[in-house]
């Protein structure tokens, strides 16, 4: 996508041209990879889309309302197509709740942004001994490496910061793009394809000489990484990042009606990200994370939710579920919605809510899971778990692992030789799978 196509040459021609010139240099047959076509990829690729609510969302105002309680706040619950009620400011999502469930008995003890982020992404609390991999990196390691046809990275993070691949190694780190699909440094400017080709040919001459000089594994490993980078840049699968190829109608499905177009600049970003995620799933990417921030609502929580956060959230989730359903993909793609923690049931003096990890909600759906279920419950004021059993991030990720076909007895070994169970030994949530 970022290799500019010379005037008068369409992309297909351009690729052939590259292929023809590369054919003379067997050492750089990078072009053999460009034939893969997103449409030809096997269907039924299992995937997970993580909607990451950076800042810690007030789930008590979204998924687990407490009407009649002093902690209830301004919003009312509404009925949905599923067997549970959600916030009145999520009306579109209410119409697809038969596909989605809410785990209302999360109890996670980490109420600091950094620690909560780490815990929810990895299932492990921070520990000075070891850096644990985010679950996206686990999927990259377990699933991505088996998808030989996949030329773009198996863990893509849209609009967010990176989470760490930990001991699984940098090749499983999230690949960062913004919601426009731009990849840092993939835009080579007006460099002609022939020039790039020449550079790579010269590089091949120098690298091969060094590889042959018998100095161990590094020289070949370096060449392999460059090969991957070139494959990426010349891959047809890069088209998946181009959300603009979608019709305005499809985009509107994810970002809300065009009447809300005034918010499209900043406001449509979440929907754009989700739409890109769907395209990436179609291209074979097994794990996509979309970062949607602005939830650290220590003050003015209700106005902000009603006017800014929830309309986007509502449109995005509803659009994604509807689109995946239309395309027959909903049972293959597990959706997870979470932040670092929930927010205090008690409303503070600034009409805000503070950090709260003891009793909060995570939304999970699609992927063949039971929809429309409320798993567990909090007490009438939302301050504690009332249902007895509570859940940890490891239970969420174990559920995802199961739906993606990753065996739950998978064990990874840290660089210091310590065995680590996948999802920290969590269990799939019975209400969602039986």
């Amino acid at each position, binding site marked *: 996508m970022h290799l500019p196509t010379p005037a008068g040459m369409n992309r297909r021609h351009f690729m052939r041209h590259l292929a023809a010139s590369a054919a003379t240099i067997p050492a750089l047959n990078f072009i053999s990879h460009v034939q893969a076509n997103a449409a030809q990829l096997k269907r039924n690729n299992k995937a997970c889309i993580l909607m990451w609510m950076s800042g810690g969302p007030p789930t008590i105002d979204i998924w687990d309302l407490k009407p009649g309680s002093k902690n209830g706040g301004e919003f009312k619950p509404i009925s949905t197509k599923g067997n549970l009620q959600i916030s009145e400011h999520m009306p579109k999502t209410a119409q697809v709740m038969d596909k989605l469930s809410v785990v209302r008995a999360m109890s996670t003890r980490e109420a600091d942004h950094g620690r909560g982020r780490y815990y929810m992404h990895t299932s492990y609390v921070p520990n000075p001994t070891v850096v644990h991999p985010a679950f996206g990196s686990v999927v990259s390691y377990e699933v991505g490496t088996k998808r030989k046809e996949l030329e773009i990275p198996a863990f893509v993070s849209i609009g967010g910061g990176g989470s760490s691949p930990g001991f699984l190694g940098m090749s499983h780190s999230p690949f960062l793009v913004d919601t426009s699909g731009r990849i840092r440094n993939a835009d080579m400017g007006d460099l002609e394809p022939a020039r790039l080709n020449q550079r790579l040919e010269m590089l091949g001459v*120098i690298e091969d000489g060094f590889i042959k000089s018998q100095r161990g594994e590094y*020289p070949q490993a370096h060449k392999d990484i460059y090969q991957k980078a070139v494959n990426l840049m010349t891959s047809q699968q890069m088209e998946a990042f181009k959300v603009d190829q979608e019709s305005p109608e499809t985009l509107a499905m994810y970002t809300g009606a065009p009447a809300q177009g005034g918010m499209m600049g900043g406001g449509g970003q979440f929907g754009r990200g989700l739409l890109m995620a769907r395209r990436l799933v179609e291209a074979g990417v097994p794990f996509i994370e979309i970062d949607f921030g602005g939830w650290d609502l220590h003050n003015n929580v209700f106005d902000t939710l009603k006017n800014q956060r929830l309309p986007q959230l509502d449109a995005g989730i509803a659009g994604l579920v509807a689109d995946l359903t239309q395309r027959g993909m909903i049972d293959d793609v597990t959706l997870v919605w979470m932040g670092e923690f929930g927010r205090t049931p008690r409303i503070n003096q600034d009409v805000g809510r503070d950090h709260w990890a003891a009793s909060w909600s995570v939304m999970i759906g699609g992927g063949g899971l039971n929809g429309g279920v409320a798993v567990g419950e909090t007490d009438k004021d939302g301050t504690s778990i009332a249902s007895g059993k509570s859940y940890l991030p490891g239970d969420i990720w174990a559920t995802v692992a199961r739906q993606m076909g990753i065996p739950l007895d998978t064990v990874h070994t840290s660089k210091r030789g310590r065995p680590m169970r996948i999802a920290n030994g969590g269990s799939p949530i019975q209400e969602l799978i039986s």
Partner: protein
Amino acid sequence: MTFGQRSEQRFWMNGSVVTGMLLATLVCSVAVAADDESVRLGAGDPVVEFINAKIRQGWTDNEVMPSPAAEDAEWLRRVYLDIVGHIPPVEEIEAFLKDKDKSKRAKVIEKLLEDPGYVRNFTTVWTNNCIGQQTPRFVSRAGMEKFFREAFGRNRPWNEVVYDLVAADGHYEQNGAVNYLLAQMQDNDDGVQATAMTARLFLGLQVQCTQCHNHPFNDWKQDQFWQFNSFFRQAQKREHRKFNPQTGQMEDDYAEIVFRDFDGPVYYEKRNGAMQVAFPIFEGHEIDSGASSDRRVEFAKLITSGEKPLIASAMVNRTWGHFFSYGFTRPIDDMGPHNPSTHPELLDRLTEEFVKSGYDVKQLIRWIANSEAYSLTSKFGTKNTHDSPGAGETALFSHMYIKPMRAEQLYDSLIVATNAHRSGRSGWEESERQRQQWLQQFVRAFGNDMAEESNNFDGTIPQALMMMNTNPRPQGGDATLMSGAVSLESGSHLAELLAGPGGEAQKIQQLFLTSLSRMPTRSELNGMQKFLRANRDPRMALQDMFWALLNSNEFILVH
């Protein structure tokens, strides 16, 4: 006659004398055996002799034949990268290759230890060790760097440096040493991280697992972790904010370490749920746990005294690892009877000598860099293929182990290769800002390896893209360093080369020399000339060649 006319004859006839001679030297040079008289290292120094004897013993015992000594160009590039943190400038390579002095390697080591680059390089290494590559909030990288700049600049005894880091208090810029503890106290975790890091970094002990249980493999017990930890309980991190009238917001101002009233034992929980107490005890020495004693000062005294304290063996092991990629133990910071070292007598003797020298870090480096093992080539032969620690074998140091450049080495080497260090196009502050900006992006792409030692090549696609991209104004990215590196604009390295004397072969040679610190082989030269001739505009071909050289495995690897 322009460069574009490409007359081979012209090059051989009119080529600059220096380069021509240089080529002749290299073409004729052959690998010299390690004990060849032409390479004389640290001759006569008993410690160096001891290192050589013990390393050779390891070769004999394991029936390996060492690789020959590295050729001058290979060795020079390596010693520059290891000591001053960047590749050698062309003029230094030329002078070194011409130098007929048999002790010229030892001379270069001396020279580099007096170079400001040495201070900068080791400051970078130890700043990263202490606070990580990405500066945490309320930590001053500048303060930490200033502390180490002074430490290495004045060659302060290592025991004093460790003492200052562990006992530090005060404002994070006035006393830069506090940044170590500030960085290790991010989590408000009662000094747990500071305890674990201090043990690993300065004492070569991995005690972190014993926070929660007795160590499964060594003698460390859970109570020892908490005894260690109790020394840090009087340290308190204080963060200060200030109001910015322009933005109307509170902003981070500074942080400091202050004394916190704390006395008595530390309480911790056994796995069976029983509560236990731990008093401040180190290696059997218990200090007064009353409120009047300053525990960190007492701790600093305890760990920095004695004839062979752990801080000495840990530093010897780390410094050896700095030069050879592998220390005497793996991991480098997990020393003790449970994890025998590869060369116990050598580690022991070096530790002893390091203490005797007055914890002289430069002297330690001198011993290591002058050793026979350090002078060997990174190529291995049939008789030492299994000396491959990367594959899990015991390190025998029978050839140099290759290692990827650190982000800072890569940046600074790119600056040297492109002559940006001489052009003085921007002031110090501006160039430092650009350096930091590039490093931040690169580190993001590269990861932070402070927590885990990496034995694999962990290069990433984003990092490769960052090196490959020469677009001066990429979307979604900062102006690329590489665009400047291969620029043809006037004043650039390539423009100067093009305008300078010499034919096409010489220009190719110059580019090899500036980037790979060596001349091209015959076949490389022929190959590159073919490329040049296939191009209508040889300037473009030369630019592409420079790009290829700077992107090559040979450039980014220290070998």
